[in-house]
């Protein structure tokens, strides 16, 4: 049975790109452009992995979502790939290397994400 991946990003073009790549590899794909819909999908479906935009709706909702998920025993085991367009260059003071300990996602990937790299990470996490 194919695995299900939830893609959470407020950019519909990014979502479309991810969906194509994932379906190419026979994953079932769920998509959400906001956190409320992401939670609904999580509660209704079995999700094997989440690709999450950290700056969704520009309010760092992605962070809060990831933290809540990891604190919830129903979902804490689901691996999260956090996609971030923000880094020290843009003066957002979050450095995965330093601050990652308080946000236990499985992988940070800086946007734009190479499709081959993304698929390699996903295969590794879902082994």
């Amino acid at each position, binding site marked *: 049975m194919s695995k299900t991946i939830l893609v959470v990003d*407020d*950019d*519909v*073009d*990014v979502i*479309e*790109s*991810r969906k*194509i*790549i994932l379906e*190419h590899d026979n994953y079932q794909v769920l998509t959400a*452009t906001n956190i409320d819909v992401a939670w609904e999908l999580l509660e209704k479906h079995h999700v094997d992995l989440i690709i999450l935009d950290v700056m969704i*709706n520009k*309010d*760092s909702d992605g*962070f809060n979502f990831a*933290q809540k998920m*990891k*604190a919830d025993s129903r979902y804490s085991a689901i691996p999260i790939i956090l996609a971030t*367009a*923000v880094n020290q260059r*843009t*003066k*957002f*003071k*979050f450095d995965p290397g330093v*601050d990652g300990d*308080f*946000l*236990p996602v499985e992988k940070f990937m800086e*946007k*734009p*994400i*190479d*499709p*081959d790299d993304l698929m390699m990470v996903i295969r590794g996490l879902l082994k």
Partner: protein
Amino acid sequence: MRKNHVLVKDQHPLTIMAHDIKAPLTAIVDLLAVIEKGYVQDIEKSKELVARARKRAIGLVQMVDDILDYTLLSDKNSVKKEYLVLSEIITESINTFSPLASRRGVSISPLEKPGFPCMVYGNRTFLIRVFNNIIMNAIKYNREGGNIAVSIIPPGDEKKIKIIIKDTGIGIDEDDLKRVFQIFQRGKKARKNIDGSIGLGMSLVKQIISGHEGTIDIQSTLNKGTTVTLILPLKGGKNE
């Protein structure tokens, strides 16, 4: 686990601008990478993705134009002015955006011909930009079955012309309303992909109106709509 994450936003305008430019650029890279790496075989699907990337790129070009216009406005001598019939400019803007409004189920009431001369002295391109920007926002933040109405109010003794653009859209949040004219600010409900707007829009509108010795005011109620009021000096014509 720490309760407060360390994500701190630097409010420097250039930082915000850089982020606003990077977002559509990453989307373009993602769309094209999918095709380049062979994840799409269907030619029609490839064309669709290229069209989406192109649309985002055009948005970026608009962003750059906004930035350049913003800097141009700071030099008043660079802005050429002429006598213009305001109702013609507004009608042109309404005609430009009527197809888009129609596709989104929003009606734009035709401008009633004012019964008085509504001549202003200004820059045609910039004034069209003002109305394009306001009408575009009125469409973007409207709803199916919504309406936009533009009216020109006759001048009183002060020889000023008032233009009111009223929509029945989703309205502007109070916090967003306070910042609406600030550079690089966009409201919470602004979606990333509708256009490439960098958040210069209303700031640019205000700059243009100020440069035409006018004023702009925005009133809004959430879920009811927004009213933009512009006041511009009325000009009698070349022999004034």
